[in-house]
């Protein structure tokens, strides 16, 4: 009897597995067929195909390069990496700024101060209801139009310039010995973490709080600073110089970059603010009341009781907002910021004419960036979800 049930169960299971294998095979076959068919059609249409173009000389200039790049010697592959890094830079900065701004506004919206709450509410309604592309063009044109021309540049007190070509700051040039400072910073951070863990364990064991905040700050800031002084301040500053057409040298922040980062941060912050507000409201008021009954102050209540519980609700939709921001960064193409889409799916695609390969690579890159971001956020989400019983 038992064996009969088992054999039925087994055959059903085998059937299910077989069905799934068949599905995988069909999908795989379709993809393979599409691939072969595309190659065949390209060949028939006399369109070059393959990835040989990767190592060919690019020949065009790029306005912002984080790694060395020159029009004459660099390859299309190099141009790809330049574009990818520019995308990552704008996205990473956008994520950080949008998070800071979004959390501030989300919390401000719940403020008991009438004016602050209304201002935050107005910000959200205004910003999230205007298409991002329009906001991007607004910021770009607002930035460009409001800044002075080269000859009327605003000279900054620290030895830089601000004009409609960008913001030019002194660029630090590090001498040898800076490695020691970096090492000191690393040691400081590790030591601070160890101290923090020790203090927490001690509190959990004895119940006595240990104020280690200042010690941690001293380790992280003081240790590198001391090393810096000991190494004899191994840094010089390259000052930007005014020339006939442009400001030369120094650290250059392009108006295109500034406009893109501002637009992405301001736009995404409105959505993050709503996510944060929803997360905080999802924590039952009884939690804060209980915390107050135990004698915790309101700041401490927020930090120790409300936020950790709210984070469990906040993280999944926050991940979506981060992914949106990263993908939206491809709108850079509208204002001339050299991101991956503008360099690779723009210039490289048009010079090589290999639309299929280039678009496939570009899509794969965005997919990878998004999946990695999701993965990291899921890990973080799992960390914050531990409190769940």
């Amino acid at each position, binding site marked *: 009897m038992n064996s009969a049930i088992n054999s039925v169960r087994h055959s059903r299971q085998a059937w299910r597995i077989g069905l799934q294998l068949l599905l995988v095979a069909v999908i795989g076959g379709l993809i393979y067929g599409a691939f072969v068919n595309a190659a065949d059609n390209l060949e028939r249409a006399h369109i070059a195909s393959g990835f040989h173009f990767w190592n060919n000389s690019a*020949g065009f200039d790029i306005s912002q390069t984080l790694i060395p790049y020159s029009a004459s010697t660099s390859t299309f592959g190099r141009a790809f990496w330049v574009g990818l890094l520019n995308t990552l830079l704008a996205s990473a900065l956008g994520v950080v700024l949008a998070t800071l701004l979004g959390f501030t506004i989300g919390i401000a919206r719940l403020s008991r101060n009438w004016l602050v709450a209304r201002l935050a509410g107005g910000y959200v309604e205004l910003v999230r209801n205007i298409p991002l592309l329009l906001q991007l063009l607004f910021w770009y044109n607002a930035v460009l139009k409001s800044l002075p021309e080269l000859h009327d540049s605003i000279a900054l007190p620290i030895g830089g310039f601000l004009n409609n070509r960008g913001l030019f700051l002194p660029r630090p040039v590090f001498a040898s010995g800076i490695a020691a400072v970096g090492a000191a910073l690393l040691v400081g951070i590790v030591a601070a973490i160890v101290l923090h863990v020790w203090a927490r364990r001690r509190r959990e064991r004895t119940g006595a709080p240990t104020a280690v905040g200042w010690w941690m700050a001293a380790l992280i800031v003081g240790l590198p600073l001391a090393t810096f002084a000991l190494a004899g301040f191994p840094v010089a500053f390259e000052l930007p110089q005014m020339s006939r057409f*442009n400001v030369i040298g120094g650290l250059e922040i392009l108006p295109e970059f500034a406009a893109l980062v501002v637009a992405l941060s301001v736009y995404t912050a409105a959505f993050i603010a709503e996510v944060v507000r929803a997360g905080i409201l999802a924590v039952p008021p009884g939690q804060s009341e209980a915390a107050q009954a135990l004698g915790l102050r309101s700041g401490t209540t927020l930090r120790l009781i409300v936020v950790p519980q709210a984070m469990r609700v906040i993280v999944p939709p926050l991940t979506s907002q981060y992914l949106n921001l990263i993908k939206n960064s491809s709108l850079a193409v509208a204002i001339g910021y050299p991101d991956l889409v503008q360099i690779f799916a*723009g210039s490289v695609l048009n010079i090589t004419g290999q639309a299929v390969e280039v678009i496939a690579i570009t899509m794969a890159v965005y997919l990878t960036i998004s999946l990695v971001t999701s993965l990291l956020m899921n890990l973080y989400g799992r960390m914050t979800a531990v409190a769940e019983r």
Partner: protein
Amino acid sequence: MKRIATALSLALLLAFSAQAARAQTLQTVKQRGQLICGANGTLAGFGLPDPQGNWTGFDVDFCRAIAAAIFNDPTKVKFVPLTAANRFTALQSGEIDVLARNTTWTMSRDTTLGVDFAAVTFFDGQGFIVHKSLKVSSALELNGASVCVQQGTTTELNLADYFRSHHMTLKTVTFATADEAVKAYDSGRCDSYTTDSSGLHGERLRLTNPDDNIVLPEIISKEPLSPSVRQGDDSWEDLVRWVHEAMLDAEEFGVTKSNVDEQLKSANPEIRRLLGAEGQFGQSLGLTNDWAYRIIKHIGNYGESFDRNVGEGSPLKIARGLNALWTKGGLQYGLPVR
């Protein structure tokens, strides 16, 4: 985003169609009842719709001439505005029948893009426009300047080449469309904007204060502009090429829009062959024998189209220069209808 969409549609078409539409373009056009022409859309003198939506320009006239030859009706054209970046994809994917969008004929485009160039309709070269306030009189004084440029163009590559070969540095700011690049130049983001010199004259008129800008004398490249078709449909390529040759021949023989009916009675055998009074030349293209008559009747000859759109009769006032007939010291040499 349009560019991505076009590229994606091409990818899907290539991946899932049994065979992308290749041959038989003329038949398709005839069945459809109109020609679909990829044009510029933002360049005065070459391709620009007016506020009523009527397209005008030198390239536009070329497409109208093809329509006139096929349908005896120059209005049977649908114009698709394309950027430099999505133009070839639109042609490859079959979205358009012919690409007439001030496009430079280069070797790599001819050999790797699956397109064929029909005939050089305009000999052009790349130049620079600068703000007069800079007091620059030569491109060689632009060392260190910021230059706005449109991506996906030969211009982008020539620019880097020119500055490199003259040991000058530059800062390029690249935009997806000419419109954005010109706006950025106009707002002072760049010292100079560079494109084909014909384009510079057209764009200058759209600036806030055209008179505060000056086109520099240097021409830094060869830009033979040519309409193109998909590779593999030779008879369609023939048709597109001969539309251009017919317009050139007409100018050479003095056949114009206004006198074409009298010229029909001409005793000159070359004119008689061109206008279809003798021979079966139109039929061999898959058209009627009065194909060239139709072109001249509706559009005029090459010189008329040039003057009306970009030459002395237009706001652009571009000199014929290299585009004069070979009999007048230029490079335009109409092939014989024989």
